[in-house]
Each structure stands twice: as structure tokens, then as C-alpha cells.
């Protein structure tokens, strides 16, 4: 039962418009830094573009998807209108306004600090204020998800909360807590310097705060994808979810162990002790667990669907899956990219192996494969699945959808595999210019050119995606059924309180954060003379 269709559509449309702009920038960046282009521009333009691309793709796009999808889940799974509709609109407007406030200084070249801020570089204060507005807007959503969750539980005592809603609230709570790190960094470290109240900054402490956000934010981006795996995919291919409890445990594990792991981004930083780096490394390894559980459950659910359709044999059932169904295709391609990306991630998280790839193009390849690939392709699937229910018009361009999904997959592989390779060769990331005539760099030239071609394929796929949605918006009106989520093989009737609430898991999440971050942060705050002069960018040119 979707009553606030306008609200949900507004989130999705704004998300995809932001995505389209950032995608064009991304493809342009791939081209200008490749050997296909003789260097002719001011490198500042490149960093300006990277900042816009990263901020849009990292902060605005996935946040809007999570919010819009979250509202859809709330109404469809709880089968009642959203509580706090005007607050939801306020949150949306805050995110939209924040995106504009942040992007104006970036486009003027006043905040080319990249989306991860990189103190002691300091840009125009409005860039950071815009980012804070986006985060505060999303916190309204976080609060609304819990309010709706609690209200439903009060009205339905003893009943299990539908899985989609349970997972959705898990994602919102994870985001609510993990965004605190970046918020602390901006409010107490960066903004006072950007506003001119201080001229030096404790860059090490600021980076530790950012790492608090930086890794768990990926799991926040991942949540809609995993929710789609568990609650859309089995239904879309005509099967059932293999296990409801396993799904809940996976989401709970994300809530508990996704947080205390961010220091693996600081393996090369001197301000955190080696012992804490090791502890974060251990917990990073644990995050593989919910993903492995998920891959197992989703493959088992696919097998159920296939056997229902007459699939036979140990592997023969794979052939009997409904491959022409875009959701089937998207999920399979997503899992392939998740597999490669996850394997690369295991290298990044190990203290010793990381030293060979730290700050190389490998890292860029890794997060584009996971986020741009495995996660975003499921955002497409979510849009395809929800669109008819939101617009009241059928999406009929199935051939176009399949082409689009295949192109996205191919484009992402062609982009990121060469990146991984040149990273192993030692190509540094975050650089505008590479002198490919240099004998030490020339072996990387072909791979970089190849990845630029991948960028072009992604651009075409993105255009096709928007075309499908626009055609859907202009299509013939029809009656869509009520929006449903996948039904588990064994419908839960009564489940343990632990799998139906978050109190215990939130306590563990906060507890682990204190254990793994408490000492490093307290120590850096207590140490004197750890600040360095700020480097203001975009001034005095």
C-alpha cells in the first residue's frame, strides 16, 4: 500500500538526476587523465570535478535512494501510511538544499578538497555546511524509520516486524550512528578553520573521526541492495526466501560489526597505534560474515525458484532460472561484482597486504566495483521494480532494461579491472596528471585507456537507464497490484525478541565503537601540539 507516491518518486528522481550529472563528470575524468587525451587543462578543474563527483555519488545519491526506498518499504511492508509525512518532506528539502549549497562552492573551484575532505586542506565553509545539511536531512529519515517501527510494534504486540522493515531500520540506525564521526569532524575540526576562527587543524584526529564514518557508510549504501536481494529478488523470480531468520541475523551483524572497523583506512597513518589497527583489521574480517551468509541465502532462494520451475541437477537448475527477468539478471551480475570486489576488499583489510596497494588506483577500482557495480546495479533493479507501483504506468522496455544492465556490468568490469591492475603496478590515485611518456609509467597507459572506454560504456548505460524511467513515466496508465515483498519458505509466526528489536544490537554497536575508537580519539584529543597549519584551497589565486 503506497500512499505517499509523490514523496518516494521525488527522492528517486532527484537521486537519479544527481547520479546522471555525477556520471558525466566521472566519464570526463576518466578521459582527461588517460593517455587518450594530451594534457591541456588546469589540474584544478580535475580536482573540482572529482570533488563534485564524489560528493554527489557518495553523499547525495545513495542517501536519497535509501530514504526513498525506506519510505516505500515502510508503507508497503507495514501496510499503513507513513507516520510523519511532513517531516519526510522537510528532510527531502533539506537534502536537496544541502546538495545545492555544497555544489555551488565546488563548481566555483572554492572547495576542491575531494569528498573525503582531506584536512589540513580547507575549502569554502559552504561546502561543509551543505554536506551537514544533507546529513541532517537524512537523520530526519533515520528518526522517522524508528518512529514507524516502534508505532507498528505497539499496534501489533508479539508479531514479527516484516523483514523488509526490520532491515530498513537496521540500515537507518547504522547510518544514524556512523554519520556522527564525519559530523564531529566537520563541526569541531573543519568548520572552525573554514570560518576563519582557527588557522590550524588536528589533521590526524580529523582523519580518525572521518574513518568512523568512512567505512560504515559503505554498508549504509549497501543496505538497499541487500534488502533488494532478500525481499525483492525471490519474489521477482517466482520463488521464496530461503530463511527469514538468517536474513535478520545478517542485518544484525552489519549493525554490530560494520562500525568498529574504519581505521583500516588509516593503515598508513602514523597517529593510530598498530595494536588498534590490528583490532580494526580483525573486525573488518568479520564483516565478510554477513555477506557470506547473504550469498548463501540468496543462492538457496534462487535454487528454490528454479526447482519450482522444473530445474534439475546439481548445477542444471541455474539454467532454468528466469534469465530474461531484469531483476534476476541484475542480482546475478551484482553478486559477481560483489564477489570480485569482496575478494579485493579482503586484501585491503589485511594490514600487510594493504601496504602493496594503499593509495594506489587499486583502491579506486575496489570501491567503484563494490559501490558503482554491485550496489548501484541493484538500485537500478529497485527502480525498475518499484516504478510501475509509483507511477501507475507499466515499464515495458524489458529488452532495453537487460541491455542497460549488461552494459553497466561490462562497463564496470572494463573500468575497474584495469584500475586494479595498474594499482598493483603502483599507479597512485588522486592525481590529475600522469606522464605516460615516462618509461616507468608507460606500461600503465594501455590499461588506463581501456578503463576510460569502460567509463564511456557506463555513460551509455546510465543514459539508457534514464530513458527506461522516462518512457515508464510517459507510458500507458494501468493498475499495478499492491506492492509485495518476498515471502519466506517458513513464515515466521513468533520470533525471539532479539530478532525483532535493536536494543541489544545497538548497545553492542556503541560498545564496540567505544572499545575500538575510544582510546585513539581520547589520546589524540589529549596530546598537545598535534595541529598543523590549514592549507586553504581556492583562495589567493
Amino acid at each position, binding site marked *: 500500500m503506497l500512499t505517499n507516491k509523490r514523496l518516494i518518486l521525488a527522492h528517486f528522481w532527484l537521486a537519479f538526476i544527481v547520479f546522471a550529472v555525477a556520471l558525466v563528470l566521472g566519464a570526463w575524468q576518466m578521459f582527461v587523465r588517460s593517455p587518450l587525451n594530451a594534457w591541456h587543462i588546469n*589540474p584544478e578543474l580535475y580536482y573540482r570535478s572529482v570533488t563534485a563527483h564524489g560528493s554527489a555519488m557518495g553523499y547525495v545519491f545513495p542517501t536519497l535512494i535509501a530514504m526513498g526506498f525506506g519510505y516505500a518499504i515502510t508503507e508497503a511492508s507495514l501496510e499503513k501510511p507513513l507516520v510523519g509525512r511532513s517531516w519526510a518532506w522537510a528532510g527531502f528539502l533539506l537534502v536537496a538544499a544541502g546538495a545545492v549549497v555544497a555544489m555551488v562552492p565546488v563548481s566555483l573551484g572554492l572547495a576542491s578538497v575531494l569528498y573525503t575532505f582531506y584536512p589540513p586542506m580547507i575549502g569554502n565553509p559552504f561546502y561543509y555546511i551543505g554536506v551537514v545539511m544533507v546529513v541532517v536531512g537524512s537523520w530526519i529519515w533515520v528518526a522517522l524509520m524508528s518512529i514507524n517501527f516502534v508505532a507498528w510494534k505497539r499496534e501489533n504486540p508479539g508479531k514479527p516486524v516484516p523483514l523488509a522493515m526490520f532491515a530498513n531500520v537496521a540500515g537507518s540506525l547504522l547510518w544514524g550512528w556512523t554519520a556522527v564521526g564525519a559530523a564531529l569532524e566537520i563541526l569541531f575540526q573543519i568548520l572552525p578553520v573554514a570560518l576563519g576562527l582557527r588557522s590550524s587543524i588536528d589533521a590526524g584526529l580529523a582523519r580518525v573521526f572521518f574513518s568512523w564514518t568512512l567505512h560504515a557508510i559503505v554498508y549504509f549504501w549497501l543496505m538497499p541492495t541487500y534488502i533488494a536481494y532478500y525481499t525483492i529478488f525471490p519474489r521477482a523470480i517466482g520463488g521464496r526466501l530461503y530463511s527469514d531468520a538468517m536474513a535478520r541475523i545478517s542485518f544484525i551483524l552489519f549493525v554490530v560489526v560494520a562500525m568498529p572497523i574504519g581505521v583500516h583506512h588509516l593503515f598508513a597513518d602514523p597517529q593510530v597505534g598498530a595494536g*588498534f589497527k590490528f583490532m580494526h583489521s580483525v573486525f573488518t574480517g568479520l564483516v565478510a560474515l554477513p555477506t557470506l551468509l547473504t550469498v548463501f541465502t540468496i543462492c538457496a532462494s534462487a535454487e528454490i525458484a528454479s526447482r519450482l520451475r522444473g530445474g534439475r541437477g546439481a548445477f542444471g537448475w541455474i539454467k532454468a532460472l528466469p534469465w530474461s527477468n531484469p531483476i534476476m539478471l541484475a542480482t546475478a551480475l551484482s553478486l559477481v561484482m560483489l564477489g570480485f570486489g569482496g575478494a579485493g576488499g579482503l586484501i585491503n583489510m589485511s594490514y600487510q597486504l594493504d601496504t602493496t596497494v594503499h593509495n594506489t588506483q587499486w583502491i579506486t577500482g575496489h570501491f567503484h566495483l563494490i559501490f558503482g557495480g554491485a550496489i548501484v546495479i541493484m538500485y537500478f533493479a529497485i527502480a525498475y521494480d518499484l516504478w510501475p507501483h509509483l507511477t501507475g504506468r507499466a515499464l515495458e522496455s524489458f529488452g532495453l532494461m537487460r541491455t542497460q544492465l549488461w552494459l553497466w556490468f561490462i562497463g564496470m568490469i572494463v573500468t575497474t579491472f584495469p584500475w586494479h591492475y595498474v594499482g598493483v603496478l603502483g599507479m597512485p590515485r588522486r592525481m590529475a596528471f600522469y606522464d605516460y611518456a615516462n618509461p616507468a609509467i608507460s606500461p600503465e597507459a594501455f590499461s588506463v585507456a581501456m578503463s576510460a572506454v569502460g567509463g564511456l560504456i557506463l555513460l551509455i548505460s546510465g543514459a539508457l537507464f534514464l530513458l527506461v524511467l522516462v518512457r515508464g513515466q510517459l507510458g500507458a496508465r494501468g493498475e499495478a497490484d499492491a506492492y509485495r515483498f518476498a515471502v519466506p519458505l517458513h513464515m515466521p509466526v513468533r520470533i525471539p525478541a532479539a530478532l525483532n528489536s535493536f*536494543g541489544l544490537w545497538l548497545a553492542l554497536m556503541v560498545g564496540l565503537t567505544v572499545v575500538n575508537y575510544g*582510546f585513539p580519539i581520547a*589520546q589524540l584529543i589529549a596530546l598537545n601540539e598535534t595541529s598543523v*597549519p590549514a592549507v586553504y584551497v581556492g583562495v589567493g589565486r
Partner: protein
Amino acid sequence: MTDQSLFSLRNPWFSAGVGITGAIVVLSAVAGLIWLPLMQPDLKLVGIWDAICSAAGVPRAAGPGASIKPDFKTSNVEMTSEMLTQADQVSIGRGATLAQRCAICHGPQGVSDANSPNLAGQFAAVTYKELNDFKAGARVNVVMSPFAAAMTDQDMKDVAAYYAYLPRVPSKSLDTALPAPAIVATGAPMRNIPPCGSCHGDIDNKAGSPWLGGQSEVYIKAQLQAFASGGRRNDISQQMRNIARQMTSDEIDQAARYYAAQP
């Protein structure tokens, strides 16, 4: 099962959840903070508490003799981005009077053909730092050092403010059509040379980096050569020495010619 009994040791979800999490924390802490550091002989640890402090990142005071004092004077100026960016009229006026003694080399309007730096429009922090370094002996020049020796801190600030106040005048060799050579536009990443413009204007300006447009070609070249040879070493953190040492003599010529032709 109600929510009340969730936080109770009798609830298996609670005891298992907290127990397993706690066990992993303890195991990883023992391994990371005690066992692994003790396995490394290079750390020269004296017991468990030392291992914990070392692995937790508690800084240890360096012993005497750990740092090597340079056998030359280093700059004692601390640069910040906002340094001397707001000059008052009194300071500029005082500076104008004081600057009369500079005019013979630097020109009455801060521009001259004497192959000494053109100071008109130079950032105040830059002029101030160089005067300071001449006075302190971090930078040595037979002409400048005696001048600077007699100046007070306020004198230096005033002179710097006055020159910053003067408008930049295009040099005689102005040629904006001259294309930027590769060393200026892109640097040389493999030799750790950033583009000149990422500190000296055009792309960005970093604290303490002088404006180079319209400076004498001879002067720029001489300074780059001095940085490369170690004859000049008042660049904080050795940025310019590291860059100049890696530049070829052709690149030094190109960069000097390019900046001399800029406004």
C-alpha cells in the same frame, strides 16, 4: 519472549551475542596489543605494559641525540595562510618611508631592471619572511643581510605591507602567448615535482609561496640553482630544495623564462 527479558543472562541471544563479541574483543586486543608487538624484536620492548603502550600508539619521548641539529641556521618564521593579509594604512605609510632605502635595487615603485626581485604586489607574508630570514642568517646575501640586520620586526611588517599594497606592473618581457612548459603545467610526478602553479598561483597559492609573474628571469634561475646546490636553504621543510634538485637545467631555464613573461 518480551523486551524486558532481552538484557538478561538467561536470554541465550543476549549471553551469546555479548559473550562472542566480548571474546573477539579480548582475543584481538591480546593479539594486537600484547602478543604481536612482543614478537617484534626491533621494537626493543621491556615487558607487557611497554608493549601495550607501544601498540596503542602512546608517543615515546625521543632520547637525547635522537634529532640531529643542522649545522646552519634555519628559518624561524611560522607561516600561516592568514599571516599579514590585513594591513592598516599606518603600516603601509611607514613602509613607504622605510622602503626608500630599498629603491636603489628594487625600484621606486617596487619594480626594477636590476635583476633583483620585483616586490610590487608581492604577498606581504613572503617579503616579511625573507627579511626575517636575512636578519636571522637563514638566508645570506651580501647586499640584503646588512640591510635586514638593522630592521625591527615592525619595520619588516611595514615594508612588506607597503610592497603588497603597490600594484603589480607587467615586466618588459611580458608575453602571455608563451605556452606553459610541461614542468610548470604538470610538474613531473615521477620525480616528485608538483606543477609550479599549485603553490605559486594560477592553480592555487600556498602560504609563503611568492608570486612569480614578472620576476627577472636571471633571478628565478639563480634561485633555483641555489636551491639545487644547497646554497640557499631557508625553504621550510625543504620543499624548494627537493624540487630544484630534481629539475634539469633545461627545465630551470624554461620555468624562469615562462614566469618572467607572466603578468
